[in-house]
């Protein structure tokens, strides 16, 4: 009995090593930063937006994995004097971590390789400030933080040798903070071009819950944090019609991410 329990524990620890500790250095999710200068009226006013952001990143810990998130969100912002803005977002995001369930151990077989979690809620708050140098150029900075209110959860089944197992992996309390600076140029037709570097920091608690043929076993939460990672961003803010604007933006860290938002200025 003791031997079997010991074997199972070793097995679970092995799974944990495979499923948890390999994502220790994950670098995930940022979201659109938007133009450095607020699009609100100079006298002060609201602007609202809906947006979509496709985020991809890779992490390394012996083996490369790719993380992908799709985010859709609604944003409300208040800005004034063309120099400052605060904003808040609420949205939904899904998560996919490629090959997280695949094993290099030939004795471990899983029914699939990828961690996939459905749409979960998240919220973002941010602030930005802008300093116009002249009528064309300006510099700005922003800070933005995101918290995912719901857990990203997925379950994988498989066998090790002839022992079946089911493992539930949860990414909990996922958050990230981004800080960036950049320059912005006013182009013809009211188009704004902006670009700059940013740093981001994220963390989450990850837990694994395994169901094996013997008593249930679970590991305590493990905290994952990524090292501060520098990326770059660039985008365009294009006036459409009747107060609407289109914002498209790309970000590059380990991989390229991109998104778009349509805003309305009150």
């Amino acid at each position, binding site marked *: 009995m003791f031997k079997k329990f010991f074997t199972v524990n070793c097995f679970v620890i092995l799974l944990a090593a495979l499923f948890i500790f390999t994502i220790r250095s994950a670098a995930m999710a940022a979201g659109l930063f938007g133009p450095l200068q607020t699009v609100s009226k100079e006298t002060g006013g*609201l602007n*609202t*937006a*809906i947006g979509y952001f496709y985020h991809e990143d890779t992490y390394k810990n012996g083996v490369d994995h790719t993380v992908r998130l799709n985010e859709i969100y*609604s944003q*409300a912002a208040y800005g004034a004097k063309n120099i400052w803005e605060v904003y808040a977002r609420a949205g939904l995001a899904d998560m996919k971590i490629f090959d997280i369930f695949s094993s290099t151990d030939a004795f471990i077989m899983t029914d699939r390789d990828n961690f996939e979690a459905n749409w979960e809620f998240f919220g973002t708050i941010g602030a930005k400030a802008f300093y116009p140098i002249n009528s064309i150029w300006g510099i700005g900075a922003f800070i933005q933080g995101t918290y995912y209110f719901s857990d990203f959860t997925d379950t994988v089944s498989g066998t090790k040798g002839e022992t079946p197992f089911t493992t539930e992996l949860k990414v909990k309390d996922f958050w990230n903070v981004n800080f960036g600076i950049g320059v912005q140029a006013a182009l013809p037709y009211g188009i704004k071009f902006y670009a700059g570097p940013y740093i981001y920091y994220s963390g989450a608690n990850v837990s694994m819950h395994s169901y094996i043929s013997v008593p249930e076993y679970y590991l305590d939460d493990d905290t994952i944090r990524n090292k501060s990672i520098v990326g770059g961003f660039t985008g365009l803010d294009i006036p459409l019609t*009747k*107060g609407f604007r289109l914002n498209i933006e790309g970000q590059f860290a380990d991989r390229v991410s991109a998104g778009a938002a*349509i*805003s*309305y200025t*009150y």
Partner: protein
Amino acid sequence: MIMNRRFFLLLILLSVFFVAGVADSSPSDFVVASPTASSPQPVLLTDASNAEAVSPPAGNPADADTDDYKDDEYNDSADDVAREERAEIADPLEPVNRAMHQFNDKLYFWALKPVAQGYKFMIPEPARISVKNFFSNLAFPARFLSCLLQADINGAATEAGRFTINTIWGIGGLLDPSSGKELNLQTQDTDLGQTLGVWGVGQGFYIVWPVFGPSSPRDSVTIAGNYFLYPVSYISPWYAGVGVGIFEEINATSLRIGDYEALKEAAIDPYVAFRDAYAQYRFKKIKARKAKINPSAPAEEKSPSDNSALPKKEE
């Protein structure tokens, strides 16, 4: 289940009233009474409502339902053709209606107003307006369907556009960017009762519903229609939906405290004043809808004052 049965009975009741009401309606619901005509307490149209009696400017009939101020201006410049008229509505249920009016009056002064005042004290006006916008946005299906049933495709498209824009960029309807200067998509102020009115259904007699207030068999369709077309009605459990409805009413009342009191103070017999005001209000709405839907119709739409069957007004 109980709620379904209750509203099924309500529908039957409304149907009975509706049939009775339409049967009761005269060829022209809104009759013009001469100043000498006997009436418990004639309430003459004010300038604003008088404008409704005069056909709108031929070049701009579509604005008739949305721009009261323009109506006022137009009316000022057309004093020479303005005629005093009032819309009357039959009131065979007057004793019951008066009791219901009293009930609603007490409900307002004893319960709704004090709560609304407290709510108004605590919640700033912009937040209350946002709440009102939110519920107005939720009421989109009834307005949209009414526009479609009136063959007002432009109105239906406007409502669909408003709903989309306000839901997406108005943070779920809390804000109303559609009404802004740039988009200028105004709420289509219509309902199923007006739809029946546009179709030519008479309003019948006057009914004062407890809680819901002044109505008629025709306009009671609005109450039933709003139940089925209003998402709040489908909140489960049912008392949660009722709670949301009460909150909506408190919020709406907080934005118009004083209006009811002013009209009541100005009237010798508030019951009659509200009855006539209701009849004129609905007449105005339906006439405006007809003018919008069919701008090519003769500008001098059959006015109550043109009813040859009635005694001519003394000049």
